């Protein structure tokens, strides 16, 4: 197994775990009101998008097309 393959495997599994957990946290945070809760929701949502990027990058779908 090459280093790149190992890095991709870690990124793939990690993105699923971290993205799934962040989605769960966002779901729990959703009914909470207040400025800090709203900002947290926004930031968690953007972080989930980051996990999606990492997921597709680990599958070589994003990042090597140009």
């Amino acid at each position: 197994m090459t280093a790149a393959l190992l890095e991709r495997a870690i990124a793939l599994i990690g993105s699923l775990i971290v993205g799934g957990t962040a989605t769960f946290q966002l779901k729990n945070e959703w009914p909470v009101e207040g400025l800090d809760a709203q900002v947290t929701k926004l930031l968690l949502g953007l972080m989930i998008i980051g996990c999606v990027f990492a997921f597709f990058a680990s599958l070589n779908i994003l990042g090597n097309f140009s």
Partner: protein
Amino acid sequence: MAVAATPGTAAYLDRIAVEERFRDVDPVYAETRDIRMFGFVLFLLADCILFSSFVFAYLYLRTSAPVWPPIVDGHQIERLDVAFGAMNSIVLFGSGVTMHFALESWKHLNKLAFNMWLVLTILLGAGFLGGQAHEYLSAPMNYTSSVFGASFFTLTGLHGFHVFCGVVFLTVLGIQANRGVYTGSKYFGLIAGTLYWHFVDVIWVALFFLFYLW
């Protein structure tokens, strides 16, 4: 169905915990909490503008270049290592998740879990910084070789500085929390630390896309 809060039941213990939590409510803190939160969000917005100025400068440089990565001395600079970047990104995003768990543990008055999640967050943050150091040492360009190198090192360096400040911030918060500075009803610093750490994560989402994926 409502559960009766009779002694010995979980509902009773929950009620006791809530009463304990709000026993030490500080009226000044309660009055100024929203104002301080607004001020902290304004700080995050100002930081966002700082990053935006560098990001738009990078976008201008990139879209006005005939080829990207640029050609230096007749050779096109190699693209960055996407696999390593994705792995390092997950380390940072994972630290955001653990920080969220740390704050939730504090809210539920579970100090042991709070300490565990906070230490994990700090370790993951330090791990990300280590990954960035490795990336800098193995980067296919340097600061002065091209606009790509200058943009990459400026933006990721600025972000790395924020992560470093965040690691120090969280360490101080951990020390304060264990010295009794925060209570079950008074923990603005922990909320601010969590928001700051999420913000640092989100800035990296943009940088990861711009430098590694685009």
